[in-house]
Each structure stands twice: as structure tokens, then as C-alpha cells.
């Protein structure tokens, strides 16, 4: 990607970060500036291969490889005419042959193999199948219209849902405010016990919420009805879960970690316990920790204990390597 340069003015993406490479039907690239310069009249020849081009046909380069761009261009054009559907064939083999033929035509055109012959073939096909082409085009347009309608419907549904939720929320808020005001009013002017009033109101509130809760559930059930996207993909978590459950391979697990408590090997006389450290007065002979040290979590008992333990550890040590 870094090496993208305009073949005419040699500008690279490094020198001009906003460089836009354009491509036309012949598959040769030009940067935006060069296109503007060369095709000021609206049409001209490609500086690489000399094919006459229209400025309107320039579009942004999507793929690095220019042959891919060319392929895409040609495919678009060819498929406009070769638009038969699978249903129109008697067998799958025939349909596959038909698809293969399309691919051969596209390949030939992009790589300039038997160019004239291929073009003739296309003309011939067009003449022969004019009626079905037009029919399929109409059909295709209809399908697109149908899809658009579905998408539009879905969007409308979303909007409706959102609006109804918003309305509901506003309603709940309003009711709460009214309740609160009523409660305050009651507390202000009534002679009853304040606790009783509070209890009465909270009970009332619970009841109302219950009713609302039921309503919400009903609404939810309604909204659940649609479980397909417009494209026919199913909505729903349960199904997808089942699917993943099948696909996921079982992970082989090694033996579980077993914690073994470390054993203290003293190899010497025992030393005082932490409690005895202070009781027996060991700490009197250790330097009191400074404030800084205490902030780090150190106390003089640690230093004292460490010295004592090291004095005891290994006192009974007898080396067994007496093999001489």
C-alpha cells in the first residue's frame, strides 16, 4: 500500500497523504489531479494504453491490483446482459456451464484474449436472448424494490417501538410526580399518622407497578414476533448457541494444580513465635522502625524474627558428603 504512486506524475502517498487514485475501464490508474488535467474536455485517451475514455467513468481505485479493478468493471457490464437465473435451466449442470461461460468471457476481456471474438459472442448472445434479458432485468428491478420495501418496513417498525417506549417512560415519570405531590399534600394537611400515610402510598405504588409490569411483558411478547431479518437470517440467541455448541472443540485439560503447603525446614532449635516475640521482650533489643519504613509495611518484628530464625536455621547442619 505504501508504494502506491500515480504512474503519470509519480506522486506517492508519502508525499501527498490525500492522494486519490482513480481507475477507468481499461484498468490503468491515474491520480485525481492528473484525471482533472488530462480529461478537462470530458474525454481523452488513457496515457498508458491509448484507449479513449470518458471522464465520468473514472472511479476510486478500491483494489491495489489494476487487473482486479478492470475485472470488476467488466463483470458489472457483462452481468447486465447475462442475467439468467438458476430456475431458467433444466439442470444444475447446464447452469454451471452457463456460469463458467460468463467467467471465461470476463477473463478474456480483462486479459485481452480473443478480444474481438469474445465481443462477437456477446453481441450474438444479446441478440438471441433479448427478450429474456429485458424480462430478467424487470424481474431484478422488482426484487430490488421488494427488498427496499422490506428494509423500509423494518426501519419504520424500529422507530415505532422507540417512540412507544419513550411515551411510556414519560407517562411513568408524570405519574410519579403526581403521586409524590399527592403524598406531600396528604402529609401536610391530613391529621392521620404519618407512618400510616406512607404505608398506604407505598402499597398503592406497588399495585400500580405490578399492573405496569404486566403491560410491559405483553409488549415484549409482541415485539418478539419478528425473528427474521429482511435478508432471511434468523434472529435469536438460542439457535446460534446451539450452533456454536456443536462447532466448539473440546479443550484438552491437563491434571489440575494441587496446592502443597510449603514446609518449614529449620534444622536447628526452635525459635520464638510471633506472639512471644513481644512478650519475652525480644523487641526491646531491636531498633524501632522509622516512619518511612512503617509506611512500607515493615515493622521491627520482621527484622528481629529474621535474625533469630537465621541464627537457628542450620545449626544442626552436618554435611553428609564425607566420602573421602
Amino acid at each position, binding site marked *: 500500500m505504501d508504494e502506491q504512486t500515480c504512474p503519470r506524475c509519480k506522486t506517492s502517498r508519502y508525499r501527498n497523504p490525500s492522494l486519490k487514485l482513480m481507475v477507468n475501464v481499461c484498468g490503468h490508474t491515474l491520480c485525481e489531479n492528473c484525471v482533472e488535467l488530462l480529461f478537462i474536455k470530458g474525454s481523452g485517451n488513457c496515457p498508458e494504453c491509448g484507449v479513449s475514455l470518458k471522464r465520468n467513468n473514472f472511479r476510486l481505485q478500491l483494489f491495489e491490483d489494476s487487473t482486479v479493478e478492470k475485472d470488476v468493471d467488466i463483470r458489472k457490464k457483462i452481468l447486465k446482459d447475462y442475467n439468467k437465473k438458476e430456475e431458467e435451466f433444466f439442470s444444475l449442470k447446464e447452469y454451471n456451464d452457463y456460469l463458467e461461460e460468463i467467467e471465461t468471457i470476463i477473463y478474456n476481456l480483462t486479459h485481452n484474449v480473443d478480444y474481438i471474438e469474445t465481443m462477437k459472442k456477446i453481441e450474438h448472445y444479446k441478440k438471441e436472448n433479448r427478450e429474456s434479458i429485458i424480462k430478467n432485468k424487470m424481474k431484478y428491478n422488482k426484487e430490488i424494490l421488494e427488498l427496499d420495501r422490506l428494509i423500509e418496513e423494518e426501519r419504520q417498525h424500529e422507530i415505532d417501538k422507540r417512540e412507544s417506549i419513550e411515551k411510556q417512560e414519560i407517562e411513568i415519570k408524570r405519574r410519579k410526580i403526581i403521586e409524590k405531590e399527592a403524598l406531600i399534600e396528604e402529609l401536610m394537611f391530613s391529621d392521620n399518622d404519618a407512618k400510616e400515610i406512607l404505608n398506604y402510598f407505598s402499597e398503592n405504588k406497588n399495585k400500580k407497578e405490578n399492573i405496569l409490569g404486566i403491560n410491559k411483558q405483553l409488549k415484549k411478547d409482541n415485539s418478539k414476533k419478528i425473528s427474521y431479518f429482511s435478508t432471511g437470517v434468523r434472529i435469536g440467541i438460542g439457535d446460534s448457541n446451539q450452533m456454536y455448541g456443536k462447532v466448539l472443540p473440546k479443550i484438552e485439560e491437563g491434571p489440575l494444580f494441587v496446592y502443597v503447603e*510449603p514446609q*518449614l*525446614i*529449620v*534444622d*536447628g*532449635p*526452635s*525459635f520464638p513465635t*510471633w506472639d512471644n516475640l513481644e512478650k*519475652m*521482650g*525480644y523487641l*526491646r*533489643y*531491636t531498633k524501632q522502625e522509622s516512619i518511612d519504613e512503617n509506611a512500607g509495611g515493615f515493622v521491627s518484628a*520482621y527484622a*528481629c*524474627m*529474621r*535474625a*533469630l*530464625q*537465621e*541464627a*537457628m*536455621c*542450620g*545449626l*544442626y*547442619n*552436618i*554435611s*553428609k*558428603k*564425607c*566420602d*573421602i
Partner: protein
Amino acid sequence: MLSVNQSLNLLFGSMFPTSTQKNYWIFGSESELNKLRENANKAFIKRHINRVQGIKDDKSNYFLNSNEERLLVKFYEIKMRDFCRRFTPQMPKPVIGTAFHYLKRFYLNNSVMDYHPKEMLITCVYLACKVEEFNVSIKQFVANVKGDLEKATDIILNNELLLMQHLNYQLTIHNPYRPIEGLLIDLKVRSNLSDPDRLRPTIEDFIDRLFLTDASLLYSPAQLALAAVLHSASKNQENLDAYVTETLLGKNNGLQYLKDLIEAVRKIRTFLVKNVETPSRDQIKYIEKRLEICRNEETNPDSEVFKQKLQEMLFRDDKADDISYQAEPTTSQNGIEKIMQELPSI
């Protein structure tokens, strides 16, 4: 709190008995140590035996023998102690102890003729500084060395990894200093000895001299500490026998170990009597003179062979790094010669 303390118990207490020091570097007897040294000496002679073939007279005196090697190491141990004492900033004691351990361990399995002790000793001290978390930079460190600083830096840094390798990367050393503190605290609490702190000067002197012997390769740091404390007590006309037999060991069935412990302490104390004699200057001069002839040229930074090898290595490095500029041969030659000039006469 209890569980925290229990884990702390393990943290502190499990140190020496499970250490590499106990498992690999505490030996059974002095004869075992001597055997190891002899083996190292023999191994060197075996490798270089063809060198003697050209010499007609006195073949037996060409190489150093094991005893001479030991004398030389001992001589340099004293040098190391003096070097550490004069070191600025002042060096904590455990650093010195650790350095001694390293030097002793290194020459158990290596011959003086392979690696000259004057080079290894500063490397040992430098590594000990690092391991004991005594933070000095290499610049600060070599400022304490007399002579060519650049050359000293080179020697230290070149030998550091080698030293670690020969120590099997077992770098944690348990020194007797903390056990001494522990014993003194215990004495203050559990004995009727008045003012145990007055024992300190003799204890320190004892430990200092102990490091010049093989005791640290034979006994655990706690045993060394106890021996030092007992020695100091007897020097100060105090008797701690009751403390040892009744308080220290008596309370928890430790009496079965008493005999061994007394024996260990006695042996440690006899070390000092028989072993601390400094080798004479003439002896050392004679040994060093012969060492210059018989030492391994490949590890002698003053030799032509070493220079050549270094040059080759540098050249290879240059190639490997694909450095575009060529180091001027004249300057690098000078540089190496400068480095190779005399090592600090510490």
C-alpha cells in the same frame, strides 16, 4: 494475621536449609576440599602437558602444584579483604562475606593457572556488590582500583559472566552476620550475660579471620555465628555453656545434637589457630614468577594469543552487526595495548 505470619515464617526460615549453599557448597571435610583443588590442578596440567615436552630440565617444576595454588589464592584473599576495607563508599560486611564465598568457590574447581586470582578477585567483589544490593556503578567501583581504570573495567566486565557460570549461577550467599545479630538478641533476652554488645569487637575480628579459612565451605552460617559468639565470650572471661546446653538446645529436645554442635564449634575455632598464617612475600614472588610462565595464554589479557583472540572476536562482532564504518585498526590496537597494560596492583 496468623496466616500472614506463617507465610513469613517460611519466607525467612526456609532460607538456609533449602539453599543451594547447603546443597552444593557445604562440604564434608577439608580433605574433600583439597581433593577438589588437586583435581582442578591436575586437569590443567593434563590439558597443557605438551608444553613441557620441549623443556629438558626440571619438568616437575614447570607447573604450579596444588599447594602453591592455594598459597597464592590465600595471598589474594588477604588482598581482597584489604581492598574491601579501603573501598569507598564503605562496604557493608555481607558484601565482603559474599565476595569471599565466590572466590573460594571459584578456585575449588578452577586452577590459578587458568584464571589469575588478581583478576577474579575484583570480579568477585563487583558481583558481590550486585548480589548484596550494594549499589555502585562500574565507574564508582573502578575508582577504588589503582592503575589503569579502563583496563580494570574491561577485566571485570569480561570475567563477570564467566565467574557466574563457574559458580553455577548459585549466587545467594548466607553470611553469618545476621545469625550473629539473632544470637545477640537471644542472649540479651534469654541469658544473664551482662551487656552482650561488648562481645562485638572480638566477634567481628573472629569472623574476619574466619573468612580467610575454609570454614565457610564446611559449616553453616549459624554454626559459624555461634562459634564466633562463644569464642568472644571465652575471650571476655564469660561462660555461655549453660546458655547453649539449657536455653538454646535444652528446651526442644536439641540435646541429641549437642555433641555434633560442640564438635563443629571446636573445629571452627581450631581453624583460626592453625590456618591463619600469611604466606611470605618471597614465596609469593617465586610463585608469581613461575605462574607468568605456565599460565594459560588464552586467558591472560597481557599475552599475544589473548590479543589475537580478542581482535578476532571484535572483528566477528563487527561483521555480525554489519556496521558500515570500519574501526581504524591502529586505534583499536592501541586501545587493546592500553587495556592490557599492567593490572592494578591491589
